[in-house]
């Protein structure tokens, strides 16, 4: 993730100010998030996740974990320091009610999809992420997430760079890096049944 120090500085400033103004509507408090996660649902970079339409519980837990240090990120960690639990829940609710974007990622070819499906049989991804990988509550939606972010996240769990869910680390260690690449491609290309997204 390459974001200039200047951008980081301005982001931090904006959020600190937002934190100071408690009465500020959530729309305004969410404004700085657009710098990375996109003005209109589509992230600026492929390694940045879609948060529009993501589950409230999941988004809240990530903000909580950035604040506690359980999850680390040069941009998100300082941003989360300015938020209290109610702020986190409000921001999480705000983004969860937005529409998940269609990133136009192609469906995975059959051999890749088959490999991803085998990985699911082996470790049971859908046990938490739901049958269409649509997520729910504190379990994130994976269907239609950016391929690069998915792959990086799974690898980060695997090599313990991302430490806020050791259960995911365990599961990612039980499959191979090639399986992870297949899963990322497959999940990125999924659309929800009966939904254009």
């Amino acid at each position: 993730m390459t974001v200039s120090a200047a951008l980081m500085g301005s982001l931090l400033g904006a959020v600190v100010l937002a934190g100071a103004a408690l009465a500020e509507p959530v729309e305004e408090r969410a404004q700085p998030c657009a710098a990375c996660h996109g003005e209109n649902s589509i992230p600026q970079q492929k390694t940045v996740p879609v948060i529009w339409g993501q589950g409230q519980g999941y988004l809240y837990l990530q903000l909580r974990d950035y604040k506690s240090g359980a999850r680390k990120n040069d941009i998100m960690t300082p941003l989360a320091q300015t938020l209290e639990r109610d702020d986190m829940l409000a921001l999480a609710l705000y983004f969860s009610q937005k529409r998940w974007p269609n990133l136009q990622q192609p469906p995975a070819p059959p051999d890749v999809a088959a490999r991803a499906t085998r990985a699911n049989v082996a470790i049971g991804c859908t046990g938490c992420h739901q049958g269409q990988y649509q997520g729910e509550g504190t379990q994130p939606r994976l269907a239609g997430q950016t391929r690069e972010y998915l792959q990086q996240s799974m690898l980060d769990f695997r090599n313990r760079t991302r430490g806020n869910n050791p259960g995911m680390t365990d599961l990612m260690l039980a499959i191979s890096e090639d399986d992870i690449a297949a899963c990322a491609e497959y999940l990125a290309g999924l659309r929800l049944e009966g939904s254009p997204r």
Partner: protein
Amino acid sequence: MIAIRSALAIASAVALAGAAAAQEVKQAPKAAAAPGLTPSNVTQQMLDGAANDRNNFLHTNGDYTQKRFHPANQINAGNVRRLHPAWIFQTEVKESMETSPIVVNGVMYVTTSFSQVYALNAATGEQLWQYKHPLGPITTYCCGPNNRGVAVYEDKVYLATLDAKLVALDAKTGSKVWQSDVGDPELGYSETMAPTVVKGKVLVGTNGGEYGIRGFVKAYDAKDGKLLWTFNTIPDNSVGVWAEKDATGRDMHRNIQAEKDQLAKTGDPYKTLGGGVWQNPAVDLATNRIYFVVGNPSPDLDGSLRPGDNLYTDSLVSLDLETGRYVCHFQYIAHDVWDLDAVSPPVLVDARDKTGKVIPAVIHGGKTGHVYVHDRKDCSLIRFSDPMVKQENMWVLPTPEGARMLPGANGGVEWSPMTVNPQLGVTYAINLHQPMTYHVQSSPYPNGKLWLGGAFKVIPTEEQSGNITAVDYNTGKIRWQVKTPQPMIGGILSTAGGVVFAGEANGRFRAYDANNGNVLWSFNAGAGVNAPPSSYMVGGKQYIVVAAGGNVQIDSKRGNNIIAFTLD
């Protein structure tokens, strides 16, 4: 940790209130659709006599003994081939269904994933009301947003929810009467079980064995939801006797010295040791005692962080109903590192002891593939059955690379309730055969996040299957076994008509001859039939009912149907 928890608890009260307001409660009470059909009061006398009640199905597992044996015999081995759908009801939620339909004088109560309840006309399938529980933002669960049904008592319907609440609904309208917090979902607590109601108390356990909870069974006042007692399934001293062998006498390869060293270093791990209870207790009305099984220790596969026997995980436990005080326990696997825990609800039977005398007994179908038979008086083990599934390489310890062992971590018998035909002295269990490798990884307690301590990995190249097995609990011998093409999860029902009903992941719902396992009837429901069937009578007609909604754990095809069957 205690300070952090307190702070979170205070903050969560505020936040959850806000979140609940953000999600509209969509109760849809409609006028009773069928003339004269009004939900009836359920008396304790009705609940006590459920085993002989042909018209109703009043408990998740049939009656307080949990035999799931329905006394009606209009549908029987001679005519079950004529069984056909009477009606199909489609729920709004197309996701894993594990509900046991409850039927009270022509009204049926069923639940769906995400803790929704429907009241239906049991003769027609017409909807009377629906309750959509407004789930809070934090729900933590490992194996699907399941719900296994409701309990009924007097004028209320009781539901335990995914966000760890106990809710009492008005049986006539579906509107909420009271709600109590059972646990904090942010710390890994959730509810999927149907409550049990007995003598004015509502009993619930908790999920969370994969999240480092401290398990419990709680009793609430049925009238107002006030907490009456709590039994911690993990005692303050969870160390036990350093058992080296399992219930069947096999060596579990524990490194006792390493565990003792760890205990000296980090102390008793009881605060995060798991021990969920997510299936119903059996109730012995004569002695006023309850019997339930306690699930796995946390983290599942990594024993290095939790020295000792990890009492009372993987155990049968009995309590005094009035006070919640401990009476006895029996641990099947001490210091489990395979998640081969105890989940299928215990069943009270009269069985022969070792001398041949018939005594009050309690049986449990294990993930290990054995049916265990205990003396109800002191929980001691009388016998265990022949294995119902292949057992290989037990008890090899999990490794980082993965060690193959059978059964896989789902069993044997998973949460699926068994059924008992007391006339034949036989219990019927459904089983899984899922070859797996067991992997261990160590990480510290992650504050309510998934904490497996490794992974169970299905071996994709090995064939999976299931079976229905009839076991003579007086001898432990297998009477008959029928193999199915896919692993079986869901439940089973037997009836006085000499028939056993069970569903499969491929959508098949079948009737078997209770005597020999011959297939007498088959129906394809179009989605996984992974829920326990019920039976009841309305207007002189017997019905069999089952949910076909698929299952998360074995990833069978999802659906949203409640299907009731009857004869011509």
